[in-house]
């Protein structure tokens, strides 16, 4: 019994353009964690340059606002934002959503992982549930999305992965052990991906921002503060130049250098 006829030629929905065919300039991107902060700024900047950008976040309202904002700003370049609601803790949803987005975009050139949470942690707080939640967003989400994109990029032998990590991964400070651990793990994971994928012509760029004017830094003692727009501009610039690891702004690289040189018995006496 024939349930339905599959002997017909390729359906239009599946006659997807070949990744290697001359692509529509300038590019197609997925930005995970695009409702605020650096992620939102990256999505906005790409769209304004004419990119097709799938913008993902938990908060649908913020995404719609971003899309509406870009609609006018991008009118001349042809760029656009495709908003998609997604919680990065839902790893099982990723393969399906990734496939749908790449098909909607007509291919993929860049994946940006910018989702992260940094809840306040009290000095004597050791809350496993809270810590694992943080790990699930900052690291689990990164692995889920980068793995999905890595498979596509490896097989099409092109593409860029851009991960927004943090200076916080440089040393294990007292303040927020698991936030720092999640960023250190992300750095390690992205470095390994870079080494794996370089053979296939795929680039992986890790960004380690210092203080950026976002929800994360609000109400905290900060210095050298830059805007999210500035951080986004510098991050995209680093990715385009094929930089492996970039501190944003670059002077944080010196801070990181000093940080790693401080001996442990001194480091533990420091207040930050």
């Amino acid at each position, binding site marked *: 019994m024939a349930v339905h006829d*599959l002997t017909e030629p390729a359906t239009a929905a599946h006659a997807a353009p070949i990744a290697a065919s001359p692509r529509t300039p300038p590019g197609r991107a997925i930005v995970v964690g695009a409702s605020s902060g650096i992620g939102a700024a990256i999505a906005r900047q790409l769209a304004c340059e004419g990119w097709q950008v799938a913008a993902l976040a938990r908060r649908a309202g913020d995404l719609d606002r971003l899309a509406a904002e870009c609609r006018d700003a991008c009118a001349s370049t042809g760029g656009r934002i495709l908003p998609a609601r997604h919680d990065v803790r839902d790893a099982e949803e990723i393969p399906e959503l990734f*496939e749908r987005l790449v098909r909607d975009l007509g291919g993929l050139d860049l994946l940006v992982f910018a989702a992260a949470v940094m809840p306040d942690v009290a000095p004597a707080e050791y809350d496993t549930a809270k810590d694992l939640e943080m790990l699930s967003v900052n690291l689990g989400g990164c692995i889920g999305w980068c793995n999905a994109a890595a498979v596509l990029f490896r097989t099409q032998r092109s593409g860029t992965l851009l991960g927004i990590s943090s200076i916080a991964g440089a040393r294990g400070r007292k303040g927020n052990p698991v936030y720092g651990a999640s960023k250190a793990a992300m750095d390690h994971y992205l470095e390994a991906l870079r080494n794996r994928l370089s053979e296939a012509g795929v680039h992986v760029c890790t960004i380690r921002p210092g203080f950026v004017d976002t929800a994360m830094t609000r109400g905290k003692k900060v210095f050298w503060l830059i805007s999210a727009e500035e951080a986004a501009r510098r991050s995209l610039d680093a990715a385009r130049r094929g930089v492996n690891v970039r501190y944003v702004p670059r002077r944080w690289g010196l801070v990181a250098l000093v940080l790693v040189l401080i001996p442990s018995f001194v480091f533990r006496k420091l207040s930050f």
Partner: protein
Amino acid sequence: MARTAVRASPRRAAAEGPPVPRSWELVEGWGMAVGAPSRVLRPRSIEELVRCFEIARQDRVPLGPRGTGNSYGDASVNGAGHVLELSRMNRILGWSPETGIAEVEPGVTVEQLWKRILPDGWWPRVVSGTMFPTLGGALAANIHGKNNFKVGTIGDATLEFDLVLPSGEVRTCSRERDADLFHAAIGGFGLLGVFSRIVLATKRVHSGDLRVRGISTRNLREMMAAFEAGRGRADYLVGWIDCFPAGDASGRGLVHLGQHLEPGEDPHPEQTLSVEHQELPAKILGLFPKSEAWRILRLFNNDPGMRLINAAKYLAGRIEGMGEPHLQPHAAFAFLLDYVPNWKWAYGREPVRRGLIQYQPFVPSAAAHDVFQDLLARCRRAGHVPYLGVFKRHRPDPFWLTHAVDGWSFAMDFKVSPERREGLWRLCAEMTEVVLAAGGRFYFAKDLVITSRDARRFFPPEKLAAFERLKRELDPEGLLQTDLWRRAFAGA
């Protein structure tokens, strides 16, 4: 007819269990000249495999079976639907060092098999020129090796298999049981069902080394004479051909004749039979990492460069031909294509746009020499000279859609680029006329150019009709499809 029901009904199974691992990726033929982005499903069990059929049904798209994607053309590409990759069903289910019989899941690779059985003194009866194909894919393509003239194809070494049909039914087939399906599914390119279990006979060996002799030949006629002279005593015979020179030197090359050692000839078989003894060196001259060697080959990937490399290899062959036979590990002799990892990237790294195709006609003995010389001349005239030519001797086998003839095959690697593509396809069409007129055949694991009209001319009509009847019976919805199916079967 033997029928075994799968445990859960397919409809129910679709809703049960964790999701089948999947990804969205560019699925290309090994030669990179064809490919399409697809959802790739990677079942880990028969239950998940049956669930993949259900997923394709629900999405109303066909499903294309694939192993590790080592066929040159579009045999495991499915641009119209999902791809069913069997590489995660890769357990060796049973192995008996007493009888040399192995029972494997379809995703077990040639590499896994030889590494498991060689230390016990066995070697696969039939292997491909690379160790990375899966045995499921190998059986679906009915692959042959350098010993085709002597032992036949991998189908000839297969005792039994289980085939999962699109209905979810699992059929056990052998020469005695469901013999029609046995002879149709081997070489059936996954279009009737998907292998879930394969039982293979292997060959007893008394050493991890082979005795190998190089015979330099100044033209095709000499090469064929060397094959015929060596056929009685050789276990393996393979010829390499420099396709560039014309005239009297047309078809010049190098024959390698391999022989198994007799018991007692190898004083330390336990040492040579070890996997370590077989491993190919990871560095060239101990210095340069092999993983980067393709970048050097790339510099030569043009007509003058390949003319030079082929000439250098021919000269090296003349020197080798003067020497004595030498010992070489099985893996080093068998898996020539694995010496330089990713060497195909020398052809370019823009999937679908750049790459290579292999064109491998199989021609009956009497006509072979003149046909192949004619083809070589046409290649040179058209300005598409193959960068690699490989020559083999074959024998017929009983499988319905077999490519094998009592004769010879000449595999030619052609560079594909956007500028060359159209002309190359025209040349292939012209060559196909010559081959078909001589009663020749083609082999779909290597092919990207044969049309369904061509295929209808070289398959025995009654065998093709029987195959198509089975296809309609076992897969009435047309669930199992590949680009190959749509190109070379369904189009007529």
